[in-house]
């Protein structure tokens, strides 16, 4: 049992993490809040899709409310509503997160539905085929956002396998992912050793009991995941948009390595977007640097993602199509400048911004549950914000410069969309 204390003036809050023999990790933090939030985190994101079941995680994301062995779809909906709770599912490339929230008194009711949904879904063929229209809607909504297209394209270009899988069902599989695919995926991936049960505002023993009794259905590791292979490619989507969205990255840091904090600090040194609405972005090196290269409206921010065995770091730019080349080159020039050295003032400023961003993300119960769950899943423990703040503070200027150098010298991947007539190719940057 991993114990961490953090004292507030009036109450002591204890976060507890236990690992059961089956491999299931149970984490809870009783903050005495009147509302509780419980999540089941599973290492079953789209990276675990195989070539013959592409899109199954998209369907699973939509199928959270379908009939289970213990309750029909109608009953789940009405039952959760009746206690004023909510049931939701989020999925990323690595994890699927099923979460419920409700008032403390109704934990038992919603917990029952949550366990049903995660361990005993029936995937009735007619209910699954009714999901096709929702898949199409999701895809249409994603197509509206150029950022989504660029990021999905970027992952598809940067990796050979696993992480190259899209969060959305590919075109050719719409209507062809059926109940068998979903059952097989659940059998192979929703196993105890890859799950974490996390609760906020719940008693740890209650969670432990639930974990031991109900989440032991499939033991073991399931199918082993494959290591992500970075390849560094390029994808260009020519369309009529006058704004060019472009992401240029190279391989970054995996979660749990020493470099992770350095890349996060580097990201804040370079700039992650406005901290003040309609402000002048005076602290963003990227914005200040690119502003010298073009007078047209643009946006530039540092892009940083960390996965369990790989990461991506680079710049994401939005520019007018005629100025695209100048903007991209100026942004990368700024990263090169940081690679040769970063001032103490910039470093301190970046660390403060990173700490503030992390702490503010923990202010909401969704953010806190997400942080606890992701940590419980990846390393089986939860680091308190103080420990994280210390880790951020220990990053030195050399670490940041080394991270920037890794980007400059690494093999680049690029994804662009828009009117690409003036957008350079990845080998021309």
């Amino acid at each position, binding site marked *: 049992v991993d114990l961490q204390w953090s004292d507030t003036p009036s109450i002591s809050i204890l976060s507890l993490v236990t690992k059961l023999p089956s491999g299931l990790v149970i984490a809870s933090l009783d903050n005495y809040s009147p509302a509780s939030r419980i999540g089941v985190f599973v290492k079953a994101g789209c990276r675990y899709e195989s070539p013959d079941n592409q899109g199954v995680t998209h369907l699973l994301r939509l199928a959270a409310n379908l009939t289970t062995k213990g309750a*029909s779809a*109608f009953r789940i909906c009405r039952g959760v509503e009746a206690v004023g709770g909510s049931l939701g599912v989020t999925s990323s490339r690595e994890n699927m997160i099923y979460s419920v929230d409700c008032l403390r008194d109704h934990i038992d009711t919603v917990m029952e539905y949550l366990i049903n949904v995660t361990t005993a879904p029936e995937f009735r*063929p*007619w209910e699954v085929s009714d999901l096709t229209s929702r898949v199409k809607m999701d895809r249409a909504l994603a197509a509206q956002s150029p950022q989504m297209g660029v990021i999905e394209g970027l992952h598809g270009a940067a990796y050979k396998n696993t992480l190259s899988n899209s969060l959305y069902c590919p075109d050719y599989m719409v209507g062809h992912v059926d109940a068998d695919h979903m059952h097989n995926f659940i059998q192979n991936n929703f196993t105890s050793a890859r799950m974490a049960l996390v609760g906020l505002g719940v008693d740890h023993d209650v969670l432990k009991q639930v974990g031991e009794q109900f989440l032991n259905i499939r033991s073991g590791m399931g199918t082993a995941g494959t290591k992500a292979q970075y390849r560094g490619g390029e994808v260009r989507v020519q369309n009529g948009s006058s704004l060019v969205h472009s992401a240029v990255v190279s391989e970054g840091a995996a979660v749990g390595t020493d470099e992770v904090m350095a890349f996060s600090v580097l990201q804040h040194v370079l700039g992650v977007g406005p901290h003040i609405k309609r402000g002048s972005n005076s602290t963003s090196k990227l914005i200040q640097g690119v502003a010298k290269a073009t007078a047209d409206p643009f946006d530039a921010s540092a892009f940083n993602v960390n996965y369990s065995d790989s990461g991506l770091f680079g710049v994401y730019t939005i520019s007018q199509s005629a100025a695209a080349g100048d903007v991209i080159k100026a942004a990368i020039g700024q990263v090169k400048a940081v690679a040769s050295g970063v001032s103490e003032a910039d470093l301190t400023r970046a660390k403060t911004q990173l700490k503030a961003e992390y702490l503010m993300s923990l202010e909401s119960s969704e953010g806190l549950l997400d942080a606890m769950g992701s940590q419980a899943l990846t390393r089986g423990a939860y680091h308190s914000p103080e420990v994280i703040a210390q880790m951020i503070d220990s990053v030195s200027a050399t670490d940041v410069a080394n991270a920037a150098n890794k980007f400059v010298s690494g093999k680049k991947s690029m994804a662009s969309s828009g009117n690409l007539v003036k957008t350079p190719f990845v080998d021309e940057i």
Partner: protein
Amino acid sequence: MVSYQNPVSHQLIDGGMLLKEWQTAFATTGRLLVSFRKWYYNAAGFNKIGLMRDDTIHEDSDVKEALRRLPEKVYNDRMFRLKRALDLSMKQAVLPKEQRTQYEEDVHYLEPYLKEVIRERKEVEEWSKK
């Protein structure tokens, strides 16, 4: 001809003849009952035009939903049998004895789906009362 009785409203769709439910008041097991049922099945006569019991069910909204849920193959077989029966009816003909559906071959394919549809509808009605 006897048609299938609507299980919810318990009304006779086609008046007059014996009901399958009536005979369950008699002994529930035994060779006598089985031979009686066989006789009744043949007397009902839909097997002469190649239909199964569930092909003759009156299509109300529950049955329509249950039909929607049938697996493709079962649904296609049903359609074929109905088509063949309509064709025979037009020609005022019946199938030769070897091709008629036998009592033992008759599969109540729709029954589980129909039961589930009705259960779900009752659940919705229960919740609406609250």
